[in-house]
């Protein structure tokens, strides 16, 4: 057991994946010599050499497009997109090819696209985006995001072992969050949500960076006699609807939390699905606590844009008080 940050757990996951399979390759902008702008790939080029871990020219479409070619050749590429806001130049390669290549060709396309995402780091424009809904709406992709160091390690290993393209969103504001942990973490399957905190009155559904916020809300709620059950989705596609419905059977109330703008966000799918499947036992409308329907604001204002403990508690209060 030792204290491990989420970033360090990812680093360990990458190291162990590289060691376990000589076909695993890491590449992207500044991931080699520098070890990544967040040091997630720190030391890996030194350990595995420049043919396993390497820097590319500055071109996201090429990073993903060549990763597809490498996957067809039998490699297991793990390309990095440096920041959420810089995945868009690669959108065509992801949506038209990564998501569809197996469908078209029958060839497996094991590919893990790592993307640090989300806000709350005081950054300039384009460095705080939460683009997950663009990918969850794209059949052929799997989409996962860890909220803890243990899941960071476990989900990353599962993603790299998976035969399908996986978008791996890393909650960058939580990179330095720590846990007592023994590495390697045992298998964390893709497609299984986790009950992060048990509770009775309201199911709070979160993923990635907002899980910690939801847990803080649960703690604060306890003081007020409000019992929140926090579910960490871990996997957005496939979505573990069973775990959500099981919780709703108990609480009859749900609040969904994410950073992306609420309009058309991933929360819409969850709310639509739960409102449908739990129609008979929902006792209040499903609430969404999410980013505002505006471009991500300048950093001094990001706290007003992002879900926080207060907004989660207010929503929980609303659904509890609903009559």
């Amino acid at each position, binding site marked *: 057991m030792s204290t491990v940050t989420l970033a360090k757990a990812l680093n360990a996951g990458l190291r162990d994946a590289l060691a376990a399979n000589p076909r695993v*390759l890491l590449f992207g902008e500044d991931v080699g010599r520098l070890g990544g702008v967040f040091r997630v790939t720190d030391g890996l080029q030194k350990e595995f050499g420049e*043919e396993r871990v390497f820097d*590319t*020219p500055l*071109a996201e*479409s*090429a990073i*993903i*497009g*060549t*990763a*597809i*070619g*490498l*996957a*067809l*050749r*039998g*490699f297991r*590429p793990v390309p990095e997109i440096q920041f959420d806001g810089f995945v868009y*130049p690669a959108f*065509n*390669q992801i949506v*038209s*090819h990564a998501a*569809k*290549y*197996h*469908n*078209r*060709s*029958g*060839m*497996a*396309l*094991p590919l893990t696209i790592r993307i640090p995402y989300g806000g709350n780091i005081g950054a300039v424009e384009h460095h705080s985006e939460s683009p997950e809904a663009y990918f969850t709406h794209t*059949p*052929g992709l*799997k989409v996962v995001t860890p909220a803890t160091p243990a899941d960071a390690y476990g989900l990353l290993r599962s993603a790299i072992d*998976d*035969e*399908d393209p996986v978008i791996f969103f890393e909650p960058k504001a939580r990179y330095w969050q720590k846990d007592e942990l023994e590495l390697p973490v045992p298998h964390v399957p*893709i*497609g299984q949500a986790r009950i992060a905190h048990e509770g009775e009155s309201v199911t709070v559904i979160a993923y990635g960076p907002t899980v910690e916020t939801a847990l803080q809300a649960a703690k604060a709620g306890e003081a007020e006699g409000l019992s929140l059950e926090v579910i960490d989705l871990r996997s957005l596609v*496939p*979505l573990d*609807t069973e775990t959500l419905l099981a919780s709703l059977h108990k609480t009859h109330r749900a609040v969904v939390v994410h950073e992306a703008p609420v309009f058309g966000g991933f929360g819409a799918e969850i709310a639509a699905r739960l409102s449908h499947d739990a129609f008979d036992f929902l006792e209040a409308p499903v609430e969404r606590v999410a980013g505002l329907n505006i471009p991500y604001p300048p950093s001094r204002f990001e706290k007003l844009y992002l879900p926080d403990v207060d907004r989660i508690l207010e929503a929980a209060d609303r659904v509890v008080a609903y009559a």
Partner: protein
Amino acid sequence: MAQLNPEGTLPPAVAIEEAGLDRARLVDLYRWMVVIRRADAEALNLQRQGELGLWGQFLGQEAAQVGATLALHPDDWIFPSYREFGMGMCRGIDPAAMLYLFRGLTHGGWDPASHHFAPLAIPVASQVLHAVGYALGCKFDHSSQVVLACFGDGATSEGDWHEGMNFAGVFKCPVVFLCQNNHWAISVPLEKQTAGRIAERAAGYGFPGVRIDGNDVLTVYAVVRAAAERARRGDGPTLIEAVTYRMGAHSSADDPTRYRSDDQLAAWSPRDPIVRYEAWLLAEGHLDDARAGAIRAEADAVAQTMRTKLVNAPVPPPSEVLFDRVYTSPSRTFQAERDEFAATLEPSE
């Protein structure tokens, strides 16, 4: 390639010598051009008769497609655009199966790994990056395989094309870039596509570029072979601009009379790659009328077989087509959706 004359052709003797062509191979180049042109014509008929949803002729581009494909080793990979049907045939892919895509039965139609021939790529220029990535993999594997990346003149305007060229230069990938410059991107003529010259762009990426007569099958063969050998030696990429002409419409949905004159078409007719090459083969005694006739008969037979197989193609079970190739390792949820879908079909499936 130093011997290319200003028109971008090699004297036949030089091409033959450089590429080590024997008579059988010389005739093979001819045979394939005749066969794929016949299949192309048949596919157009099939489209007109409603058997295909769409057809994209490659009439006039046979020399580029045949010369390049035959110049490679069979296990070198080809990453085609949507127009390289002829190349697929040269790779031994069943032409009827390739047409299934244009019939709306499949998005694929063959196993890319057995033919070393990637799926047709419709988003223009996107395949260039796959080719470069695959080539980088060959390099990492210390393989002797090389990769041919195919695209049109219009494709050179896309960002993906540039990013692929640059990656290939930086990583010195074993890849040959083959541009079939057929002068048109649907209705947009070359001079509105770029103010530069395509082959000259290679210098900016740190590797050689060469502009050749794409209607001269011997030149195409010799130059692609030399570029492939260069790549195989570890000396990196080459960009080949094969100048040719799209003698047909962009596709069966297109009406070129709206944007191009008969004059231009007429000007290119004398440069027909098959006519030119046939005349030379006959003159040199590599071919006689009997053999030529036999080849035409073979082409007819290939076309006929293709047609018969196509029009009788069974429609595969919908649940399979729709759901069985979305994920290699599908989730429970996905399987449940598949089952639900299958249930709605029960009576018909």
